[in-house]
């Protein structure tokens, strides 16, 4: 079987298209590359969606933690403490057990052109349940980063805003928020990288992989178990993740350049990737 044929069969296997049976017996290098690459779709899906939705919640949390009234500050502090203080692995388990206990009901949603039934059992599936956990988790970590940046907005910036007569929402949107982002961006880049790494935990925690539709590491472990040879599948995963990490750094570097475009080029803070550190 040619490699092109393998790509056709297994390229979208993680989404449930193509060949149903996973390769067994003699496993070729091409099959390993294709199937693990196909699993990367899930890693990118989880990481990208959690990051994009978590960003807004994280900003809200950071502002809440920085606010004076007890009623907004305390919940934000507790939320951040609980999600940063406990292992993501346990959070996945806990969420799965909770979602399984939900009563099985369907809610009809009329979209105008079509009617779909939202079912509560979707929560126990990885695509929604794990996404929610990752969303909450990354929100907590990012909120702490944004909170730190919010605290270190230079006093001069706020005084300048006052001098211009900016108050409330306008002051936040025009002065505080852009400076916060500028300060927080390098750390936020690291958080994004860790989040993508954390997506590999999904199928190793409570969430089962239905019909062997798993992520990159799930397939890598499948191959390692089949061939008793860890020296091929795991380096492949590593290679895919190095590429993904480089893409993230490039994308965030572009945003960083855009955020700092008003500064002379020498004083711009370069993005420095401080590696390591999972949760």
């Amino acid at each position, binding site marked *: 079987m040619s490699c092109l044929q393998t790509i056709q069969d297994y390229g979208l296997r993680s989404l449930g298209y193509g060949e149903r049976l996973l390769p067994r*017996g*003699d*496993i070729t290098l091409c099959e390993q590359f294709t199937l693990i690459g196909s699993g990367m779709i899930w890693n990118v899906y989880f990481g990208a969606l959690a990051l994009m939705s978590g960003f807004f919640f994280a900003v809200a949390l950071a502002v809440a933690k920085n606010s004076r009234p007890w009623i907004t500050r305390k919940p934000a502090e507790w939320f951040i*403490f*609980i999600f*940063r*203080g*406990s*292992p*993501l*692995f*346990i*959070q996945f*388990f*806990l969420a799965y*057990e*909770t979602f399984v*206990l939900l009563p099985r009901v369907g809610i009809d949603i009329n979209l105008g052109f079509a009617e779909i039934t939202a079912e509560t059992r979707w929560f126990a599936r990885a695509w929604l349940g794990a996404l929610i956990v990752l969303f909450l988790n990354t929100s907590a970590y990012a909120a702490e980063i944004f909170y730190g940046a919010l605290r270190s907005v230079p006093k001069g910036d706020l005084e300048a805003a006052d001098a211009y007569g900016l108050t409330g929402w306008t002051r936040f949107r025009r002065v505080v928020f852009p400076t916060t982002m500028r300060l927080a961006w390098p750390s936020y880049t690291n958080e994004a*990288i860790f989040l993508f*790494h*954390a997506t*590999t*935990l999904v199928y*190793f925690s409570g969430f089962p992989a239905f019909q062997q539709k798993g992520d990159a*590491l799930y397939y*890598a*472990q499948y191959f*390692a178990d*089949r*061939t*008793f*040879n*860890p*020296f091929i599948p*795991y380096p492949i*995963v*590593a290679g895919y*993740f*190095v590429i993904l*990490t*480089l893409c993230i750094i490039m994308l965030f570097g572009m945003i960083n350049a855009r955020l700092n475009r008003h500064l002379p080029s020498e004083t711009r803070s370069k993005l420095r*990737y401080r*590696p*390591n*550190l*999972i*949760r």
Partner: protein
Amino acid sequence: MFEFCEDPSALETARWFACYLTNGVHFRFYQSFLTVLLLLAITAPVALVFGFAGAMASRSHVAPLRWIGKTYTAMVRGVPDIAFFLFFVIALDQALEWLAHQAACPDWTDPIRQGANFIVCDAAKIPQSNAPQWVHEAYNFSIAVFTFAIVFGAFAANVLFGAMRAVPRAQLETGEAYGMTRRQTFWRILVPQMWIYALPGLSNLWMILIKATPLLFLLGVEDIVYWARELGGSRTSQYQYPHPDWRLWYFLGLLVFYLGMTRISEILLGRLTRRLSRGQATMAGEDQRKAVA
């Protein structure tokens, strides 16, 4: 445990729970908390030693040694740690068996890798197939500890390498001016001063190590996650203590355990930072000096 536990089905709620939570399997569950603490207690110093060796190698003037150090620290960049955990456990196991095979059966002619199989002679099986259960468990545990130490050692090497570079250059030059050798400046000037620079990174690492301990479950050790799943699953009336699916409550218990661990660590590390800042040429050290004066 208690005398009234003879017939649990006849007990009222409080006593039922007193009996339920003190039965034999639950003691194994409580023991597994000690397993986690033991892992932390062994891994942290070993990883620190690995990290120190890695950082020293990265600073070395001998090129091959420097390459080894750099590769070791670069190894963890950009790759999920869990991939390393899964990889090292099999790789270490096979490496050990291969070495034992070379030593024990030199006249074995068949290839070790036959297609999808990894075959060594019986004498080289680690642990021996007729070994008692606890040997297997201890072997699994030590492989897990070693894997944790390698991975976290690489993280620690990164932190320590940065800390060594953060020590003000003037301090080292002073040492050289006093006629100390390179080795003397390293051990007498650099190492005592670098810890305060390494501490933020190391405490972060400690928190992450705590939060990585549930991964023991993936490495085949009977840890708290294993027992929480095992004990929480629903029990039919055939069992002595029938109950519905309680895994949610067990995992809530684990969550509280981990939150407590991180909270205690935060407090202790805060104290350690204050202690190490004493007499250092940093802002915190300066503040302490002023407060006393």
